[in-house]
């Protein structure tokens, strides 16, 4: 990928990637760092193939690996043992209604649940694509997503949210 193509790709991908990292980690500063590192690794690793979709999936995969590595660092608790409201520092950039309803609900989910929900419902990736990005089995993604959705919906309804 040459410099101009990268600039265009960056222009289109940086904001969605930052949104993913910020919401999954709950830490905008960490999202800044991980986003930069993701793009640098994306460039040093070489192009995964032609096409914006393939490149973006590859970028999200790198970012997911970085998130996982961050959560697995010895100074942090293992991913599944993290307390539910850990790393859910208030995102000062968030606005309006989501502060009142979504943020508290997300903060009470485990990091991996936030990650899976975001990839599935904010980025609209399929179970297979999420499995490729996160290194989980497709069946595990399906089951974890089901549980995360159920818990998230319960938390949102506690706040008086409804579908219709």
């Amino acid at each position: 990928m040459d410099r101009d193509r990268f600039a265009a790709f960056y222009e289109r991908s940086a904001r969605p990637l930052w949104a993913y990292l910020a919401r999954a980690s709950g830490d905008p500063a960490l999202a800044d760092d991980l986003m930069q590192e993701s793009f640098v690794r994306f460039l040093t690793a070489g192009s995964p193939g032609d096409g914006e979709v393939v490149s973006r999936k590859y970028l999200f995969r790198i970012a997911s690996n970085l998130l996982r590595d961050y959560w697995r660092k010895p100074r942090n608790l293992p991913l599944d043992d993290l307390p539910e409201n850990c790393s859910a520092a208030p995102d000062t950039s968030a606005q309006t209604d989501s502060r009142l309803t979504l943020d508290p609900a997300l903060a009470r989910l485990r990091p991996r649940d936030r990650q899976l929900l975001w990839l599935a419902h904010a980025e609209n990736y399929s179970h297979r694509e999420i499995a490729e990005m996160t290194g989980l089995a497709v069946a595990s993604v399906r089951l974890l997503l089901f549980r995360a959705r159920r818990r998230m919906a319960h938390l949102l309804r506690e706040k008086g949210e409804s579908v219709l």
Partner: protein
Amino acid sequence: MNPMNWHACSRSEELRQTFAQGHWPDACPADLRAHVEQCALCANEILIATHLQRARGEAMSSAQPGASNLLWLRAQARRRNAALERIGRPLVAAQAFAFAVILAAMAGLVVAHWHSLTDRALSLTTALAGWGLAPIALGIAIVTTLGCLAAYLTLERQ
């Protein structure tokens, strides 16, 4: 609920497509809308997707990505460092090989001249013992050797 199995609904894919295309709720078919009212799984899906899509929009508008040029340069620098490291690997191997050859040559020389060396060492030790300096001389020799080795390795790494 229209069960496909206990954690999925047979209409969830259709619902997902409708939502992704922006047809929910106004342009959604009436039967699908009625289904969502009755299906807990689909209702959860819509509830969460609605909130997360809104949050995505908000987060994207508040993101402040830096200049792509800096990342490009960082990547180039990292690539160059990696290339230099790759190039340096054979040199390190060659140095290790040369060191091993020198050690082997020294060992060969020692073996070849063992008798004369032991005779000389005995005479030297006798002389040093006479002065009481043998342990000190041995210590200085070891420290000097190790110091030279450490200095070489440090400079070589730098």
